């Protein structure tokens, strides 16, 4: 036999099944291109040189992993659609006298061709788009570096290996499928209907419980740290709940629709409802997949957009003033040097400074159990809630505008935003502080008040008491103990560049050794922090949108395949209905009703998920310092709007190809 026979046969098979293979090939091209791009960017030498690129590289690396795993699952899933449609063809070959090993040879060539073409095109597209995507990324992280056009061999190799593996596994799976089937089964497999499914109450209950649990976590877990831990639990519960509910719930709902005689016996609903009941089991999985993917897109994109949009408010929250000089364990001399350095820098650079303020502060974590402030030491974590205590002096408090009060050595004033406000005293190791008053306002505006844990600001009599507390802390925390810090914060009159230059200059002045030796001091500027935070948020936004695209593509493709494969099954049904007296117009409208239901059920469900997840994501992005709920709400609504629009376009295209098949 001709050496090229199987190759030619494979080629003509692919051509014949063009409408099935084209989207599949496009999907491979898309995923491989995206994988290549992420891979190439995360390995890019130019990006490595950017400040704060460590976070960015880590984020992009994470993205590579997600896309890789996703590609495996997704392409495998799409392949199963193809196989289902083509089994009849293989059965026919088998019956016409082709042995299974011949079919295997043919399938081998098919996959080789698909793999070759799609990986080649995917990498080509990746290489071409790489530059564009890099530019988008750099724009997002507000960084300008001119990059040359270059090709990452490393990324190409890893893309080729990954996708060859996926195709290899796919081929093995397909061969196994054909191998174990009898020819007559192959012939019939596409036309197998399902028996009408029973309403499964147990599954429905499990679904409701899982979904309820997930929602409850999202709605009622307040502590952001717990949110971080429980987030994935909630995600898994919601996914589980979605699958169960779609499987059991959809059948129940459809049966209810059927029970409602006035609704059911209408031309539009009659065929669509019965058609959906008929293949609800396979529908349910498809619909849940669509729903979950949509939810992921929405959560990712809205979360990262909000984070990105909220960069400024987060930065201002973290650093209320532009320049922050922190000295550790300073003597009076050290403090004077800081004051001097700031004044000298201003004089040297001829820059005006304003809003200068300084305070002394000791801050450490305790686990607060009622009025006891316990110190977690080593492995054993004492009872109570993790909280941060910020100790400040009465002098600083009053200098900042606090009211005049006298304090004894064992008396304190307390301010807390979200912690307990009823305590009478604090017991700290062998010391007891009587709380003289709970303050309603803290004048120390330079101190960060919005943080993850409950924070207690405790005003003590003077620095002597502060020192005592420090000694106590050191006795437990040893070398991990935090030091008393002296913070000077100020704004400079000038642009960002001057702000950074000023910070540098202060830092230089302080670093120069003097007779008293070196002092431990750190200078931070808001501008620099902003840049590195921007890098972080921009990287996240980039990844969010990037993965959003990938998932959107997957959603589209799943919907497309679902409708197309159902179209072939429905063709016969609609032919019968036309024979019995259904007009073309009625066929169209009943198809529309069916596709509408299939399309918008998952979208509605995804929106409900998003609504429930909203408080949780809000707390999560709060962890990154973004505390602007209205902004987040706007971003979320915007994302949903854009998504729905894209979804509607996909609907239009799918409905058209469905009509083509059926009509």
């Amino acid at each position, binding site marked *: 036999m001709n050496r090229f026979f199987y190759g030619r046969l494979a080629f003509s098979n692919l051509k014949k099944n063009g409408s099935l293979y084209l989207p599949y090939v496009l999907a491979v091209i898309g995923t491989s291109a995206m994988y290549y791009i992420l891979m190439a960017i995360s390995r890019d030498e130019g990006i490595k040189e950017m400040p704060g690129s460590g976070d960015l590289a880590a984020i992009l690396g994470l993205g590579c992993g997600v896309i890789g795993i996703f590609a495996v699952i997704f392409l495998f899933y799409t392949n199963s659609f193809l196989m289902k449609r083509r089994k009849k063809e293989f059965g026919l070959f088998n019956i016409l006298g082709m042995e299974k090993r011949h079919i295997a040879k043919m399938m081998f060539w098919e996959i080789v061709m698909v793999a070759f073409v799609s990986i080649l095109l995917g990498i080509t597209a990746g290489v071409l788009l790489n530059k564009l995507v890099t530019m988008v990324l750099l724009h997002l992280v507000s960084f300008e570096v001119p990059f040359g056009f270059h090709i990452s061999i490393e990324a190409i190799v890893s893309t080729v290996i990954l996708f060859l593996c996926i195709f290899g596994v796919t081929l093995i799976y397909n061969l196994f499928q054909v191998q174990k089937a009898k020819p007559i089964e192959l012939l019939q497999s596409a036309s197998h209907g399902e028996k*009408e499914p029973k309403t499964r109450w147990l599954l429905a209950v499990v679904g409701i419980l899982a979904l309820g649990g997930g929602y409850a976590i999202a709605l009622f877990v307040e502590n952001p740290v717990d949110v971080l831990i429980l987030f994935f639990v909630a995600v898994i519960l919601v996914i589980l709940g979605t699958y169960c509910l779609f499987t059991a719930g959809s059948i129940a709902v459809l049966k209810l629709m059927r029970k409602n005689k006035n609704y059911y016996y209408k031309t539009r609903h009659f065929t669509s409802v019965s058609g959906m009941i008929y293949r609800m089991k396979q529908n349910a999985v498809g619909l849940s997949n669509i729903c979950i993917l949509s939810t992921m897109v929405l959560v990712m994109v809205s979360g990262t957009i909000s984070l990105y949009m909220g960069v400024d408010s987060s930065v201002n929250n973290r650093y209320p003033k532009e320049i922050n000089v922190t000295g550790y364990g300073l003597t009076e001399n050290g403090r004077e040097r800081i004051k001097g350095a700031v004044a000298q820098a201003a004089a040297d650079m001829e820059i005006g400074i304003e809003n200068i303020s300084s305070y002394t502060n000791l801050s450490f974590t305790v686990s607060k159990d009622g009025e006891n402030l316990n110190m977690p030491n080593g492995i054993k974590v004492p009872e109570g809630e993790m909280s941060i205590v910020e100790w400040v002096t009465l002098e600083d408090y009053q200098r900042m505008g606090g009211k005049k009060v006298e304090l004894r050595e064992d008396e304190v004033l307390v301010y807390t935003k979200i912690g307990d406000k009823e305590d009478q005293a604090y017991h700290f190791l062998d010391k007891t502080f009587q709380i003289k008053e709970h303050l309603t306002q803290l004048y120390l505006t330079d101190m960060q008040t919005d943080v993850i844990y409950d924070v207690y600001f405790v005003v003590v009599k003077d620095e002597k008491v502060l020192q005592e507390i420090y000694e106590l802390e050191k006795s437990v925390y040893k070398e991990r103990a935090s030091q008393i810090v002296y913070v000077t914060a100020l704004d400079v009159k000038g642009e960002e560049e001057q702000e950074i230059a000023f910070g540098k200059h202060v830092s230089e002045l302080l670093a120069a050794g003097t007779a008293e030796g070196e002092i431990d001091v750190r200078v931070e500027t808001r501008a620099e922090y902003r840049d590195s935070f921007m890098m972080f948020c921009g990287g996240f936004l980039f990844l969010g949108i990037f993965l959003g695209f990938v998932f959107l593509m997957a959603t589209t493709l799943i919907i497309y395949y679902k409708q197309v494969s159902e179209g072939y099954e429905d063709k016969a049904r609609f032919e019968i209905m036309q*024979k019995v007296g259904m007009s073309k117009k009625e066929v169209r409208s009943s198809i529309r009703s069916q596709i509408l239901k299939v399309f918008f059920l998952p979208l509605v469900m995804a929106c409900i998920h998003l609504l429930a997840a909203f408080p949780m994501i809000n707390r999560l992005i709060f962890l990154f310092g973004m505390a602007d709920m209205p902004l987040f709400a706007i971003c979320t609504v915007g994302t949903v709007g854009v998504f729905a629009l894209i979804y509607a376009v996909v609907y239009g295209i799918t409905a058209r190809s469905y009509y083509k098949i059926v009509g």
Partner: protein
Amino acid sequence: MAILEVNNVKKVYTTRFGGNQVQALSDVTFSVEKGEYVAIMGESGSGKTTLLNILAALDKATAGQVLLNGKNLSAIRERELSAFRRQNLGFVFQDFNLLDTFSLQDNIFLPLVLAGKGYNEMRTRLMPIAGKLGINEILGKYPYEVSGGQKQRAAVARALITNPQIILADEPTGALDSKAAESLLSMFQGINQEGQTILMVTHSIKAASCAKRVLFIKDGQVFHQIYKGSSSDEEMYQKISDTLTVITTGGGKHE
């Protein structure tokens, strides 16, 4: 009065590639009176199915006209066609054409649902028909759960429920075992006695012998017809059988 008139109907198919023309019907003329039970017989390829499709308004004649109650089928506009067929014609097919997605009852309701009838009316119409056809017990079942004979009875119920002018049956016994076929045929006779006009296309002499009149089609023309008159089914069977022998052997020997 003739309920159905077929005048000089001609049908020519053009093959998909190139201009090869195939003449399926050359010149068919006959009429069916109200309350008649007519069977049309002919060999494979004689044009039976083409004729039925034209009568069912599923296909258009190349020349000639078909009048149902005096109304010309080819003059009905495309968008009224479905409604017209639904209201005036009932169909019974060889392979039942029941939808797997519906229970038998819903299958029977389908034409009424399409006509926008309410559930109660549909139910009222169904009851006597279901009783007559003996499918009361299985109305809730699905097509894949019942036997071929039961499926065909459901299909007959679907054809009857719209009170059609005429029932068009295409090889209704073709997919049934002999027992089920016999019971279906006697059902047809019963329905016909109540005044329902039936036109059946068939291969089977047995089926045709139940009809009141049999038309024979050969090479796209009505070749011959025989009336049952007062003869029994058995005598009719013999007559048809003889006629078919004449037709298949070309008629030369007997002339």
